[in-house]
């Protein structure tokens, strides 16, 4: 009598045959019986029925999905190989960029020279007019005075014409009033002497931005410090020193401030001078309280960007405990236990992708998820979704 029922599950093909209505009544009965016995068969069968009802070609979709899964698995395994190519490409790009920068530097030096030539002789009243107006004549439409004096300059013009135009633009934007040619000689001299700050900044940007290389060392031990945060002035760009304690900052100008910070050390400020290579020595800090913002940030980056619960941990844990206790009180028939909930904190702090990591009782797990969700969004410090887990104890 105790006939051991073999749980033969119908195959996907059989289920599809059933859905298509191509089975005898006996066969249909067997499928239905299997479905009544096994939730998985039942779910699958119902899914197929609904798919048919919705007129969805499940076979086509499944093929598409199979391809996607293949791609997914290949992506991972092939990632290791192109890594070499990527690093090779990075080196090439770095060399290219370096070459470009030196080229740019040379070019801007030419521009400075030119600027000096233009600006140099403000003593004689006759000269400034033709020289400044030479670069402005297209814009201000001042009739060209006798060009004999400015004759030596034009040959240089074509080479750096793009620079010249930009400078000329600046000239115009700053000295927009000098419509009358008499005002020009007076207005002209101050411009090259960097009296107008915008002008000088523009010139600085045009001319003396360079790439700063540096080493970060421990002042006491002279050891290299890796992972120090180097922050550049107002622009708020920051880089990290590499394993050799080296860093490279591009687009640096003279007189810009650089701050170097590393946890446990006094942050060090450095004003960019003419040198393109610099060594910054950090000394150990005595008090933790003194840490400046970049230092704090450096530490935050070290702390691997863990998300923070809506309340301080202690309070949050207490809340969780309270919630679980009420739940158990309301559901005394349930056996308590621990639920290890894995979840993802999205960028906006929302929680998603809950997982029942220790295969706990489904009802406990669902309640745990409900409690977590009721707790509100977390504070995400990461730039991307962060996967984490928490243990919730129902006892």
């Amino acid at each position, binding site marked *: 009598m105790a006939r051991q029922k073999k749980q033969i599950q119908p195959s996907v093909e059989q289920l599809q045959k059933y859905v298509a209505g191509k089975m005898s009544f006996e066969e249909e009965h067997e499928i239905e019986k299997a479905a009544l016995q096994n939730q998985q068969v*039942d779910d699958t*069968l119902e899914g197929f029925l609904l798919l048919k009802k919705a007129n969805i070609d*499940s076979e086509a979709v499944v093929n598409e999905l199979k391809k996607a899964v293949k791609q997914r*698995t290949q992506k991972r395994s092939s990632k290791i190989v192109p890594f070499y190519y990527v690093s090779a490409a990075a080196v090439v790009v770095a060399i290219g960029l370096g070459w470009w920068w030196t080229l740019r530097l040379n070019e801007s030096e030419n521009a400075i020279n030119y600027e000096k030539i233009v600006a140099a002789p403000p003593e004689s009243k006759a000269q400034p007019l033709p020289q400044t107006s030479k670069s402005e004549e297209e814009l201000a439409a001042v009739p060209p005075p006798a060009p004999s004096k400015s004759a030596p300059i034009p040959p240089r013009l074509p080479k750096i014409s793009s620079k010249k135009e930009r400078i000329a633009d600046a000239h115009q934007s700053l000295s927009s009033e000098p419509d009358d040619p008499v005002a020009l000689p007076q207005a002209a001299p101050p411009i090259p002497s960097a009296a107008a700050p915008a002008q000088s900044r523009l010139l600085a940007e045009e001319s003396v931005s360079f790439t700063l290389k540096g080493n970060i060392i421990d002042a006491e031990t002279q050891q290299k410090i890796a992972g120090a945060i180097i922050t550049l002035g107002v622009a708020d760009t920051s880089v990290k020193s590499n394993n050799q304690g080296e860093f490279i900052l591009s687009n640096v100008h003279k007189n810009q401030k650089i701050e170097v910070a590393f946890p446990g050390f006094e942050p060090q400020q450095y004003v960019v001078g003419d040198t393109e290579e610099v060594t910054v020595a950090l000394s150990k800090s005595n008090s933790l309280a003194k840490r400046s913002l970049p230092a704090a940030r450096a530490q935050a980056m070290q702390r691997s960007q863990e998300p923070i619960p809506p309340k301080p941990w202690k309070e949050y844990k207490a809340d969780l405990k309270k919630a679980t206790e009420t739940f158990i009180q309301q559901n005394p028939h349930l056996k308590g236990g621990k639920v290890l909930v894995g979840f993802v904190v999205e960028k906006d702090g929302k929680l998603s992708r809950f997982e029942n990591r220790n295969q706990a009782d489904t009802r406990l797990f669902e309640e745990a998820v409900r409690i977590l969700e009721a707790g509100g969004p977390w504070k995400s410090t990461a730039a991307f979704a962060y996967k984490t887990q928490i243990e919730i104890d129902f006892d």
Partner: protein
Amino acid sequence: MFLKLFRRKEAQTDADFVSDYRRTGEVAGLGELYERHIDMVFAVSFKYLRDEEDAKDAVMQIFEQLIEDLKTHEVHNFKAWLHTLTRNYCLMQLRNKRLIVGDENIFENESYESFVADTTINEAWEVESRWNDLGDCLENLALEQRRSVELFYYQKLCYQQIAEQTGYAIQKVKSYLQNGKRNLKLCMEGKQHG
């Protein structure tokens, strides 16, 4: 060599794949295993989510979850476990959606009900050993449930035939059977314990 590798895999069981993955951490093998059951995962996802795109997303997301979970979980019956994983994932999706949409839609479809009800009736069902109790319990069932159960299990008819004979809708036949089965089981258990 590659061919040999391939041929060996041909005969692999689900359990082989799982232990291979746990040993090597290679997702390619896991992908192969997943493809075996991808029809089931998609169908089940569609059953719960009722949306093609959502179901497709679910299939991919569940695979990601699989990659993680299989590392830590001991799995004996992969297909059953995968089904549970799929269902839990979908219910979680529905739950998230419910927070935005509101309750009604999800509770209307009977699938949710069957989920709540099913957990107890999964195991093999030993009716045959207790005929007497069964007869009593059958008598206590609601008429529709009793007729459906008798026609299905005794006369081995399929849903469609039962529907034709009784005039019940096919969907109803199914739920009569499910509920009838559950009630029978509860009734039998009650008899056994006292």
